[in-house]
C-alpha cells in the first residue's frame, strides 16, 4: 500500500487506539481539526472525545498531565504543534518524563509518546522549523526516534506507543506528503537501516535528510563514488553496530542533519564513530549541517538546509587522493 507519511502516522495511531484501550491521543487541535498537519484526522470521530481530544493551550500542561496519566496506567500519545512549541514543556520532559523510571527504580513506567513535527523546508516562519533533536538525545531516559519513510513512520510510531519508555517521536514535517510503501516488515526500533549499499563512503542521515542522502548517492554515481546510506531511525539509543560496520567498510563518512552543527547530534555521531573506527578512517568524519544560526525565514532557508551539492562537496573533501593508507600529514 502506497501512502504518505502523514497517512502512515494516522494509520499507526488508529491501529494503536483500536488495539489498546489505554492509548489516548491529545494536544492542541488534534481533535475535530485533526491537527494542523492532519495527522490525527478523523480519530476523534472514530474513537470519541474521551480518547482523542483537544487540551488547553499549554505544552507543559500537556506533558505534565500525560505523565500523571501514564502513572495511572494509560499510554498517552501527545502532540506538540511545532518543534519550538515543545520548549515550554522542557522541564516536564527533562526532569520528570526522562527520569521517572530511574528515580523510582523501575517501579513507575512512563509509556508516553511525544510527537514533535520538526525541521524546515516547508516555508514556515520563525519557531516553526527548529530541529531540536540534540536537546532530547542528550537527556538520558528518553528514547528518540525519527522516521525517514512512511514505512518507518508507521512501524516506529507503533513501536514507540508500545514502548515502556518515554519516546520523543520526531516527525520530519517536510516529508509528511512524501509517499512510500508500507511493507509490514518489522525492524527492531533501535536499529539503523542501510538504505543503499555502497563501497566508498557512508552517508549517515535521519528523518528529513534520508531522502536527501539517497538523492546524493544517486548523484554521486556520476562522480564515480559508490555511496552507502545509513538511516539512523533511532537517535537514542544509537546503533553503533550498523553504523560502524558501514564506516569500517567504506573508511569514509559524512553525517548530515538540518540542525545547527555546533553541539548538534552529528557531533556525537562523529565522536563515537571516530572513537570506534579510527584506524579505518581515511579522512575525518565530516558533517553537513545547518549553519550555527537561528532557523532562517522562508526566503532564505534554501541556503541553510543541507542539499545534494553540499553533501557531494563534503564527500569530495574526504581526501580521495590521499593514497597513503592512514597517511599522516604534518
Amino acid at each position, binding site marked *: 500500500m502506497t501512502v504518505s507519511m502523514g497517512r502512515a502516522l494516522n494509520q499507526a495511531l488508529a491501529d494503536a487506539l483500536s488495539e489498546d484501550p489505554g492509548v489516548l491521543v491529545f494536544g492542541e487541535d488534534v481533535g475535530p481539526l485533526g491537527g494542523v498537519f492532519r495527522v490525527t484526522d478523523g480519530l476523534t470521530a472514530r474513537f470519541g472525545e474521551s480518547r482523542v481530544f483537544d487540551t488547553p493551550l499549554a505544552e507543559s500542561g500537556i506533558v505534565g498531565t500525560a505523565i500523571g496519566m501514564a502513572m495511572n496506567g494509560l499510554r498517552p500519545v501527545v502532540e506538540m504543534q511545532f518543534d519550538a512549541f515543545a520548549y515550554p514543556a522542557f522541564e516536564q520532559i527533562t526532569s520528570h518524563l526522562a527520569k521517572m523510571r530511574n528515580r523510582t527504580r523501575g517501579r513507575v513506567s512512563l509509556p508516553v509518546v511525544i510527537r514533535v513535527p520538526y525541521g524546515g523546508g516547508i516555508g514556515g516562519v520563525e519557531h516553526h522549523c527548529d530541529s531540536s533533536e540534540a536537546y532530547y538525545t542528550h537527556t538520558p531516559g528518553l528514547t528518540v526516534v525519527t522516521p525517514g519513510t512512511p514505512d518507518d513512520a508507521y512501524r516506529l510510531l507503533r513501536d514507540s506507543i508500545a514502548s515502556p519508555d518515554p519516546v520523543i517521536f520526531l516527525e520530519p514535517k517536510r516529508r509528511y506528503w512524501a509517499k512510500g510503501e508500507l511493507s509490514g516488515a518489522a525492524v527492531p526500533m533501535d536499529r539503523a537501516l542501510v538504505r543503499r549499499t555502497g563501497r566508498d563512503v557512508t552517508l549517515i542521515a535521519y528523518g528529513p535528510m534520508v531522502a536527501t542522502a539517497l538523492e546524493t548517492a544517486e548523484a554521486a554515481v556520476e562522480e564515480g563514488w559508490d555511496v552507502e546510506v545509513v538511516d539512523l531511525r533511532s537517535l537514542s539509543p544509537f546503533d553503533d553496530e550498523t553504523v560502524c560496520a558501514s564506516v569500517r567498510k567504506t573508511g569514509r563518512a559524512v553525517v548530515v542533519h538540518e540542525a545547527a552543527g555546533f553541539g548538534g547530534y552529528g557531533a556525537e555521531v562523529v565522536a563515537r564513530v571516530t572513537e570506534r573506527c579510527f584506524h579505518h578512517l581515511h579522512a575525518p568524519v565530516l558533517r553537513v549541517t545547518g*549553519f550555527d544560526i*537561528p532557523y532562517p525565514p522562508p526566503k532564505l532557508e534554501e*541556503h541553510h538546509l543541507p542539499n545534494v551539492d553540499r553533501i557531494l562537496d563534503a564527500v569530495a573533501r574526504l581526501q580521495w587522493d590521499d593514497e597513503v593508507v592512514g597517511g599522516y600529514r604534518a
Partner: protein
Amino acid sequence: MVHTRERSLLPTEEPLSLLRKDGSPVEDSPLTMPDDDVLLELHRRMVVGRRFDTQATALTKQGRLAVYPSSRGQEACEVGSVLAMRAEDWLFPTYRDSVALVTRGVDPAETLTLLQGGWHLGYDPYEHRVGPQCTPLATNTLHAVGFAHAARLKGEDTAALVLLGDGATSEGDTHEALNFAGVWRAPVVFLVQNNGYAISVPLSKQNAAPTLAHKGVGYGVPSVLVDGNDVAAVYAVVREALESGGPTLVEALTYRIEAHTNADDATRYRTSDEVAAWLDRDPVDRIEAYLTSRGLLDPARRSAVAAEAEEFAASVRDKMNVDRTYDPAALFEHVYATPTRHLREQAAALAEELA
C-alpha cells in the same frame, strides 16, 4: 472606574460597552465616551485597517505572503487599543496584530516582512515603540512586564500594552506575567482578544471560569470585561488602564471572521451560522452607525475614508508585489553583536558556494 479600591475584585458580569450592536449609545455606561475627533479617527483607522487586512489575505492567494493570520472582525480591539496608547507607551503584539501595527504607524511592508517570509521582523522596534510580533504564545506578556517595570525603575512614564489571545491565557507565561505585574504593580495592560477560538479549540475547552477576566483576581490585578466589538469602549478602557500606573487585565469579547490563517479550514470546527451572527455584530458597522446617527460621518467623509483605504491597500499591494532578492549574508550578521569566527567562516563558505 476599575481601579478604585471599593470596586469588587471581580470583573462585571456583562461586558462594559459604550455602543450597542446597532450603534446606539449605552446610557448608563461607567465608561467615558471618547471625544468626537477620536471617534472619527477610530473609525477611519478601522476602515483602513480592515482594507489592509483584506489586502494581506489576498496577497497570500497570490503567493506574496507565506501566511497571514487575519484580524478581520477584531478591528475594534486592534485599533481601539492602539489609538488609546500614548506616544511613550510600548506595544507588544502577536502574529495576529498586523492591523494594530499599521495603526501604530509601522510601515505596512515592514509589518508584513515576517509573514512574507523575508525576515523575522521588518521594522525597528524602537522607532514606533512596538516589540516584535510574537509567535510563541504568551511569551510576550513577560517582555511587556519587564519592559514596563524597567521604565518604572528608570523613572519614565511608559506603560506597556500586550496583546494576547484567549488560547494564550492558558500558557504558564501568562500567569507568571500577571503575577509579576501584580507584585511589581507594573504599568502593563494585558489585552486578551477573546475571539472564541485558539485555532480550532473553542473557549469552553480552554477555560472553565465565567470569563477570562476573572484570571486577574488571583494576582491582585484589576480586571475588566469589555465588548471587544465596541471600539469606543475598548479605547476608553485601555486608555484608562494605561494611565492607571499599574497593571490591568482586559478581556475583550470579539470574533475572528476569517479562518485562523489562510492555511486553516475553519469549517472543520465552527458553523457558518456562528460566523453570520458575529458578522451581524460588526465593529466597523457599529461605529459607523453611531457616527452617522450623530451626524459626524457624512457620505463625503465616508467615501474619503474609503478612498484612503483603497489607496493604502494599493500601496501595500505595490510594495509587496515587488520581486525582492534576499542576501544570504544576512543570515550570519546579527546572531551576535560581532560575528564569531565560526560564523565568519560559515558565511565565507556560503558566499563561495554561491559565487
